[in-house]
């Protein structure tokens, strides 16, 4: 009886992985759809992602979306090394599988590091942050253009500068710096920060799990488990999960950062 179960699992392992991924895709879909619905609800005050994610390491100035573009490249690249590991497994080439798996793990760590950097800058925010003015309007500052206040309302940008800006800051009700779950300097809604932390965090946790699973499989490859077993189906299953993580990022990239 026990044997029968195990052989069934082995034969159907890939299919079970697929069905798990379908359910996981539904979870991510729900998160992104909730994001979309609430963004449409608060469209007047929702920040434009191009104004929020503007940092790039070692570059002083605004380079909107370049960094997330780089993160996308890193993840796609690690997806390629993963699929090459699976391909090497089909050729029963243990050494190549090990090399490609190793590179996939490196790619995974690079992505996690990038995300940590991204989170740091999102939480830390700009030097001056944003102000809630006495009339209730929400005004952002820009480190590169000191003394100016930027007010977004109904997709219209108003700029206040000079003495008027100084007066507005002096009479402001509140100064918000960076982001947390209650408020953020990017827009007058906590939802933007909440969705950022939840969606990219949930995805980042998936990447982290993927890296852990990849390391386990990598050790198995190095110790020759799959050479003895005669096939690399386990590598294929891990590969499915890893590609799925890449796939989710493609959607997060579009719907969180681009649109």
């Amino acid at each position: 009886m026990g044997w029968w179960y195990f052989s069934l699992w082995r034969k159907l392992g890939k299919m079970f992985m697929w069905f798990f991924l379908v359910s996981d895709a539904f979870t991510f879909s729900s998160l992104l759809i909730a994001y979309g619905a609430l963004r449409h609800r608060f469209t007047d005050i929702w920040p434009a992602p191009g104004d929020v994610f503007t940092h790039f390491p070692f570059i002083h100035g605004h380079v909107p979306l370049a960094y997330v573009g780089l993160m996308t490249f890193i993840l796609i690249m690690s997806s390629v090394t993963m699929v090459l590991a699976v391909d090497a497994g089909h050729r029963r080439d243990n050494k190549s599988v090990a090399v490609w798996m190793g590179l996939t793990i490196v790619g995974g760590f690079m992505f996690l590091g990038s995300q940590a950097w991204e989170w740091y800058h999102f939480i830390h925010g700009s030097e001056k942050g944003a102000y809630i003015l006495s009339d209730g309007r929400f005004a952002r500052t820009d480190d590169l253009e000191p003394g100016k206040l930027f007010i977004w309302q109904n997709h219209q940008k108003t700029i206040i500068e000079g003495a008027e800006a100084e007066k507005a800051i002096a009479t402001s009700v509140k100064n918000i710096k960076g982001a947390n779950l209650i408020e953020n300097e990017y827009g007058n809604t906590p939802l933007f920060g909440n969705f950022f932390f939840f969606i990219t965090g949930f995805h980042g946790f998936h990447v982290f799990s993927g890296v852990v699973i990849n390391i386990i499989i990598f050790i198995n490859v190095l110790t020759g488990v799959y050479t003895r077993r005669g096939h690399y189906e386990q590598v294929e299953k891990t590969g499915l999960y890893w590609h799925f993580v890449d796939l989710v990022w493609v959607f997060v990239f579009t719907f969180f950062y681009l649109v």
Partner: protein
Amino acid sequence: MSDQNNEHHGGYYTGDVHNQFVPEHYDPKNRKKIWTTFWILLAVTIFEVAIAFTSLSKELLMWTFVLLTIVKSGYIVGIFMHLKSEKKSLQYSILLPFLLIVYFIAMAIAEGNYLHKMF
């Protein structure tokens, strides 16, 4: 489970008490296909970032992004995850449930727009 068993091209034996033969479709052209897919994904991503800041209308941009995202996910699922070479029945059982997601998106966005209009 001897290695000789698994010298067989086009599949492998499970090696347990059943020692079942599992067919595999190994194609030496795969590696070229993988790299072609990579270049396509990279080009599409660069194109997306490049057009994000052009003066195209917001509507047009959004639909372009949605379309390109579907193209990209098609390549990832079809080539990287090998769904293209799986059985028809598996393909349908994986892809058809996502029709419900399309319905969900339409409902949720309509709801968001309604709430925006009313409150």
